């Protein structure tokens, strides 16, 4: 089964929760094609725990997956530097349901996302928003470039839709972690 859903880059906790809810309904995550498509396999309802980690470097991703597997986590196909793991809730004791045991390492994961994703996207968006202002001015001046204006406004909307919840979620998480 295919489901469409969008989570922005820092909404991994929401995404984990959603995948867990899907498993409870008997839909087991198979793979995804970002940004919208999730593929599930129908089975009987199960209680699974899903967790994301984020590492930019490909070599690190592989060796991290090896380490997670030793702890009984199953590595699932994920994308864009995000690593996804699952484990049956029945196999978890209270303290091995989480992949981080201190605030510091959890915060470092968020900082890796910020550094390699959120901040670069934000910098790009400044150019896109500046272009929107430029195109608007051109339009007001009566130059005939409606197409450019429409493209600029579309790009801006898409970026804003990604960035606003991304920063909101990052700030909320940081507050919770006391940073």
């Amino acid at each position, binding site marked *: 089964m295919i489901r469409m859903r969008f989570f922005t880059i820092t909404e991994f906790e929401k995404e984990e929760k959603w995948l867990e809810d899907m498993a409870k309904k008997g839909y087991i995550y198979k793979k995804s094609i970002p940004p919208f498509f999730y593929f599930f396999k129908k089975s009987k309802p199960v209680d699974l725990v899903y*967790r994301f*980690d984020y590492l930019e470097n490909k070599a690190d991703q592989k*060796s*991290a997956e*090896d380490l997670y597997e*030793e702890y009984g986590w199953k590595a699932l196909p994920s994308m864009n530097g995000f690593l996804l793991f699952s484990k049956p809730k029945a196999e978890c004791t209270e303290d091995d349901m*989480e*992949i981080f045991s201190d605030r*510091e*390492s959890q915060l470092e994961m968020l900082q890796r996302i910020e550094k390699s994703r959120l901040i670069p996207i934000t910098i790009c968006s400044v150019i896109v928003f500046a272009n929107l202002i430029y195109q608007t001015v051109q339009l007001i001046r009566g130059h005939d470039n409606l197409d450019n204006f429409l493209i600029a406004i579309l790009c801006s909307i898409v970026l804003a839709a990604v960035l606003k919840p991304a920063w909101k979620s990052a700030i909320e998480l940081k507050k919770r972690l006391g940073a």
Partner: protein
Amino acid sequence: MKTSQTLQEKYAPLSEPMFYILLMLEEQDDHGYSISQKVKELTGNQVTLPPGTMYGALSKMETDHLIRQIRIDNKRKIYTLEPIGKEILQQEKERIERLYRNCKGEKLS
């Protein structure tokens, strides 16, 4: 490579996961999962080092040359303690010793 002085400042005080990882590596070369098991046992299940925390701590300390990967055993990365890691661990032990003695009401000379 950073000088040992700046590294000592960066790592003081050591986070609990990093402290225990260095402490275990001081005893013998080891891999992440085994370290986590030993720490669990040593602390009566009070300190757990789950994989996200473990991987983050190991790679950070490897980058700063506190530890070094010596070989891969059946997909497991075996780490050893480097001199700078040893120095940082020693400093931390002394700090903890001071805290402990002060906690007991002892005045240090």
